């Protein structure tokens, strides 16, 4: 179907495209090993987060936690903020984002364009300062609604009810599903659905490994595991460094014409690892992976050009996924 009542109805239903040039070559007579990319950049605001934002808002409306005119508070500068800003605008809510003042200019412009209000926390204070600012805002506005994507079951349910069924419909022979691990919603929802329907399917996480600055915790006890995370849904979990993510992101556009953000490069890196293992073992594999968003928002990093080391330096200290 290509006609929708509104933009919100057009979320999901993204194409699954084969990657004939990046899929590994198998020896003559061996079973095929194929890579398939789910183009989530084709969602209304250009990222996979539209699915979760829509489900979280709808769930909150149905539960009576969100009423017309309410204010939604979200501490993110990432894709979820952009998705929520669009949904909030169309559903009649005000969105306030709390973010550090050193986020990219594109992010701020996109959020403001969609009508979101932004409260900045001083960059100098790092995450401790962001936490302090967020706490202060919440204390001053106890009536503002937080959807909390890291612990909101509607985030994972969006993928259980949409991403998973779409993949099975388009690729009934699927053997592996690979996606990024952040809130864990995509992997938990899609993974649970596929495990119920496809015997032996493997669910694989690709986790971004950032530069040192991002892990600036004072001690181990300040770590965080999202409430949605259930390790039993996964078969394997890869940590992908900046260099590998950039290399694969460039291959996506150079070899297959897919212009994606760096998290998608990290996901492809893990997908290629399992694909090559399948070739070695002589097993058939249909590996589906997620293109989480397009590359537009990351152009100003400069990491699409120059050497890999220059790109790595450009992304040092940034949350590139």
């Amino acid at each position: 179907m290509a006609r929708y009542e509104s933009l919100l109805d057009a979320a999901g239903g993204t194409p699954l495209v084969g990657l004939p040039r990046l899929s590994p070559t198998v020896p003559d007579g061996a079973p095929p090993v194929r890579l398939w990319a789910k183009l989530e950049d084709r969602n209304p605001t250009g990222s996979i987060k539209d699915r979760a934002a829509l489900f979280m808002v709808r769930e909150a409306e149905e539960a009576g936690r969100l009423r017309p005119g309410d204010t939604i508070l979200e501490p993110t500068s990432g894709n979820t903020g952009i998705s929520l800003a669009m949904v909030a605008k169309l559903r009649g809510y005000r969105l306030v984002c709390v973010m550090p003042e050193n986020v990219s200019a594109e992010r701020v412009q996109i959020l403001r364009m969609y009508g979101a209000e932004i409260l900045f926390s001083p960059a100098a204070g790092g995450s401790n300062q962001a936490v302090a600012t967020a706490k202060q805002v919440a204390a001053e506005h106890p009536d503002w609604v937080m959807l909390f994507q890291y612990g909101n079951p509607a985030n994972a349910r969006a993928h259980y009810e949409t991403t998973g069924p779409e993949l099975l419909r388009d690729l009934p022979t699927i053997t592996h599903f690979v996606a990024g691990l952040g809130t864990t919603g995509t992997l938990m929802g899609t993974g649970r659905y596929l495990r119920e329907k496809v015997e032996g399917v493997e669910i694989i996480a690709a986790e971004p490994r950032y530069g040192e600055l991002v892990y600036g915790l004072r001690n181990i006890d300040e770590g965080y595991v999202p409430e949605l995370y259930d390790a039993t849904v996964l078969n394997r979990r890869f940590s992908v460094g900046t260099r590998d993510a950039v290399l694969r992101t460039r291959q996506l556009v150079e070899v297959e014409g897919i212009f994606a953000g760096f998290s998608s490069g990290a996901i492809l890196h893990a997908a290629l690892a399992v694909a090559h293992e399948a070739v070695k073992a002589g097993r058939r594999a249909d590996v589906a992976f997620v293109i989480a968003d397009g590359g537009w928002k990351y152009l100003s990093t400069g990491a699409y050009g120059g050497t890999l080391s220059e790109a790595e330096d450009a992304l040092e200290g940034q949350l590139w996924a």
Partner: protein
Amino acid sequence: MAIEVRVPTILRSYTGGQKVVEGAGATLSGLIDDLDAKHNGIKGRLITPEGGLHRFVNIYVNDEDVRFLGALDAKVADGDSVTILPAVAGGALGFAAAAALLGNSSNRPAAAPDPTEG
């Protein structure tokens, strides 16, 4: 050849500030014992008194999470690269701020937030 171990900033007080140290062992458990012999106290930061991996510590052998490779029994060998990282997944900042906004600790059970708790 030895096993190369990458140490996160917050644990470098145990390694004299070294970012990368070398260790030996046939399993992750053996490797951690070897590391503790050279860098006294580091084991206590990685493993709980009950003997499991600390909840907020992730360890990767050649970029793969050891919890899916047998955890402390995961096989390691000379030439492997082991990376220790604090668990912050998709960005410490967003998580920390989100958790703080809810006024909850990171250990609370999975549930949709109740906005009336403010």
